[in-house]
């Protein structure tokens, strides 16, 4: 880490945290009107263009946003896509849980159905507890949900930024290392594959593009 330019690093960490939170929000939440209006606004497209300059998904998102604002796309279409990808265990369910992917590598070869593993979910929830975090009352998913893991990364980035702002380099280094460890121990092993599945199975360009961008962002983590 470059200690000379604390201001820049804190801003960088905070912006990383913001991107993790952005993706956590879209992965964890049904697309209600407020979320769709924000996500498919011109400002959102322009902001994403700055984060992912020249990426073809941005152009597709921009087109979709235009259609939505003109009333040519219904909110229900995105809601159904979200439900099928993240909530309802049907044909396009992406099984957005770490244990489902790691168990798939273990026993479920040749196209069998994945399942949850209390050991892995316990490890992940312990990682949250170490940061003094706990699930909200309304969250009803297993703790190893991909959105929850992005949320933890967001917290770790923001806490790192706060530590840098306070001049607590040791704490910032510790949090930065925690973030890297969590990424390596958990998200690295399955996050990209899960997001690829979302991308391939999504019915709408909204989730196809968001998954593609999330995967790109996740895979760029070691360089940050």
């Amino acid at each position, binding site marked *: 880490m470059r200690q000379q330019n604390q201001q*820049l690093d804190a*801003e*960088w960490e*905070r*912006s990383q945290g*913001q*991107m993790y*939170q*952005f993706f*956590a*929000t879209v992965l*964890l939440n049904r697309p209600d009107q*407020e*979320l769709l*209006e*924000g*996500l498919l*606004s011109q*400002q*959102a497209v*322009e*902001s*994403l*263009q*700055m*984060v992912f*300059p020249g990426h073809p998904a941005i152009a597709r998102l921009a087109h979709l946003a235009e259609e939505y604002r003109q009333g040519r796309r219904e909110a229900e279409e995105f809601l159904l896509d979200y439900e099928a990808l993240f909530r309802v265990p049907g044909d396009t369910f992406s099984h957005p849980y770490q244990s489902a992917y790691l*168990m798939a590598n*273990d*026993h*479920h070869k*040749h*196209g*069998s*159905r994945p399942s949850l*593993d*209390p*050991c892995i*979910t*316990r490890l992940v*929830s312990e990682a*949250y*507890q170490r940061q*003094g*975090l*706990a*699930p*909200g009352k309304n*969250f*009803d*998913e*297993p*703790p190893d*949900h991909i*959105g*929850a893991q992005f*949320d*933890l990364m*967001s*917290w770790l980035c923001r806490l790192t930024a706060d530590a840098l702002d306070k001049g607590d380099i040791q704490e910032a280094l510790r949090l930065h290392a925690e973030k890297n460890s969590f990424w390596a121990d958990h998200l690295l092993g399955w996050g990209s594959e899960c997001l690829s599945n979302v991308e391939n199975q999504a019915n709408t360009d909204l989730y196809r593009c968001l998954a593609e961008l999330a995967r790109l962002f996740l895979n760029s983590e070691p360089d940050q």
Partner: protein
Amino acid sequence: MSSNRRDFIKGAMALSGLFAAGGCLAPTEKTDTWNKGGPDPDPAEGAKVVRTVCLGCHSACGLQVKVKDGMVIKIDGNPYHPNNKEDFLSYDTDPRQAEKVNGTVCAKGGATMQTMYNPYRVQHPLKRVGPRGSGKWKSITWDQAYKEIIEGGDLFGEGQVDGLKAIRSFDPIDPAAPELGPKANQLCFMPGRIEHGRKEFTDRWFKDAFGTVNKRLDHTSICETSHHVGLELCLHKKNHIKPDIMNCEYIVFFGTSPYEANFPMQAMARKLNFFRERGGQLVIVDPRFSNSAAKAARWIPILPGTDAAFVLGMMRWMMDHDRVDLQYLAFPNAKAAKEGAGHLTWSDATYLVRTDDGKLLRDGKEALVMAGGKPAPASRVQQAELLVDATVNGVKVKSVYQMLVERVKERTVKEYAAICGVEPQAIEREADAFTSHARRAVADFYRGSVQHTNGTYTARTIGILNFLIGNVSWKGGCEAHGGSHWHEMGGKPGNPYNLAKDLHPGKVKATGVNIDRHKNRYEETSEFKQKGYPAKRPWFPFAYHNVYQEVIPSIAAQYPYPIKCLITYWNNVVYSAPAGSHQIELLKDTKKLPLHVAIDIVMGETSSLADYILPCRHFLEDYATPHVAPTILTKTSGVRQPVAPPVFKDTKMLEQIFIDLAIKMGLPGYGKDGLGPGRDLSEPGDWYKLLVANIAYGDKKDHAVPGATEEEKVRYVLERGGRFENRDKAYKGPHTHHAYKGICRIYSEQLATARDSMTGKPYDPLPFHEPVRDCLGRPLEENKGKYPFRLLTYHPVYHAQARTAASTWLMGVTPENWVQINTADARKLGINNGDLVRVYSVSNQQGVRGKALVTQGVRPGIVVIPHSLGHWQYGSKPFNLDGKETAAAPWIGRGCSANPVMLLDPHLKDVCLQDPIGGSSSFYDSPIALEKV
């Protein structure tokens, strides 16, 4: 900063204001455990968790028992135990963390708490006060029971009865027949169900302290003994095979329903689910459409007892279509097989057999094979000739494979199919499928195939089918060893206590013939020298695991000698054995059996015929060190320990009863210094702490579990309910990790050179289909006109053996016991679904009654009655205790049992049909009739 980085920051921060942040985590001071979507929170707050091993059936699954205020409130599966979870916990997992994870437990296991708190358990020692079997009892003290059993006397007003002290004499029973052994052999111990840890304890008592050879005549022959004997005659010191289900591609199960029974049922069912999800082919060969058949790719309803014919048909097709792994069969020794194709096993297919006497051709001790046209020692040849029919030094010889080919080609596939009652295509299709998965195909079987008079032959035939594709010990193939266990009795380099050999000062040597003649040769007896064949009753030199159904009839016949005292434990032979009800009158005969002491937890059908009942503990109040089947590929040593204080305080552990008797009798090896100087054996814990210590230290040096002291190591094991090797030790390269590395025998020289004690004829040493026969070798007179059906029974998934009828939960889910009959057969007899019918045989004209279930899921000509119901004691009827009638629960006696109707041997007339080699009782060869009542 680069413009890209600046744009990134700007873009990211701009996104933040567009909609509300929707994460799920928030800071909290109290870090709760995750209680949504993860493992269920335990409803029993503050409950103590004790891990033990189940005995709801014989699978020995782990239990995680929740106990509150000294009472069992819930039973779940032990997450450390490989029976209960595919991804069972790493052994070093903190036990407190493990409490938050539950393994699976089947309905029977979960319901065992009901049989523990069963109000109809016997609570005090009882002595009969009327004739034996009259149902009249009085409560006595333990001291009185011990005194009378040891000293004997005129105990019942019927004359002198010898007690244990008088029976323990080392004078010969019959000086003219010294091979029978001493009078101490006139004490016989007949446990129905007894597991490791406990069976070694009672062996030590009966054999090494008291001095009787009749140390443990347990239930195995009414379970599956011919399965074990048949495989022991194929493998070296191994008697159980199972498929490596998690890597197999094709499995054909004969005579078993792994989704209902087998070992361990819940692990096999779970593994088969993964197997089927992967596209594995499951085939069930069974006259009954079981729930396993419902999940199978194919169900093949052969006629009962024709499994060997079906398999011989498969072998015929395989030979005709060049689908036998001849390369594997041609390796005559371990080194050649390993170097040649990476096998860990080899076969005797190339060994030469003398056609004059059936023995292997040898040079000294070395078996000979033909290589390059010349005989050579098997150990020195890379590959030998498979088809040999020659003369060597004037002796006509054939290779084992030559003999197998000739045997298989005695019939065509069509002829084999006709025996089985199926179309030839059924055999051809399975032979093709079995040989289309390289070594990832397995033929497995269990008691439905072997509890016939031809059981051992069938076991060998099915076992040998696997050898023909060389699948033994391969990943995805036939597993003949399994993970096994640590040696709780000691004797390995790492074990601190060698209980098997040492730690028994003053032990005696038991000699002589077993009352059931198992492991004894008739030809070595004085009787044979005097009269030759046939013997008065069958002898079973190959029945290594006892002949349970033969014990009471032999006592009644006083053959080969009288018995003076029978001690039974968890024994219900008159209920559980085929035609066992015919043994009731035999057991009542006080002249033939002067003293019968039953150790039991209920007034069972058999214990009701005792002179004394000594009440023992329920398994949840007990110790043991049970083992698991080779389904489990990692080393597994479950430890049973009491989970709660005993429900009935005046009951005792089995070990305590025998310790008390031994101390009072002064038997060597009990009481002070009973296990050697400074080591007492005064209570069961003295024994079991040594067994668990052996497990804790492990078999190899420096392989102990964590812990600074022995006590800490023992606690480490007990906290986890045993010692369990981690999952990553299941495989080693392309093989299973703890693989069998020995010979696979197609030919049995032992069988070829032994003779049936009743017919004088030699046994068949090759795969063989033998039709059903009586003990004189006569084919069964089926009398199809009068008894046109064949009776079968099976183990339904919610019940086990004799013990589950006392559970209201289990009886609630199986409220009726159906007499299952094929739709077309029912129509001919005018029987509708739910009609009351009578099932009877030539051996039991009165028969049993039950409600008809008319179904297409049973082969025509077959009638099926599931086991475990139809009790006529066990708490279903009151008895007279201390002058008053006891309470009873008639619902325990609901349903009917198939056993009373099963056929008696037409020659012996007091025991069921039996396999003369393995000793298995026949459950599936009885012709019966049925009519509407």
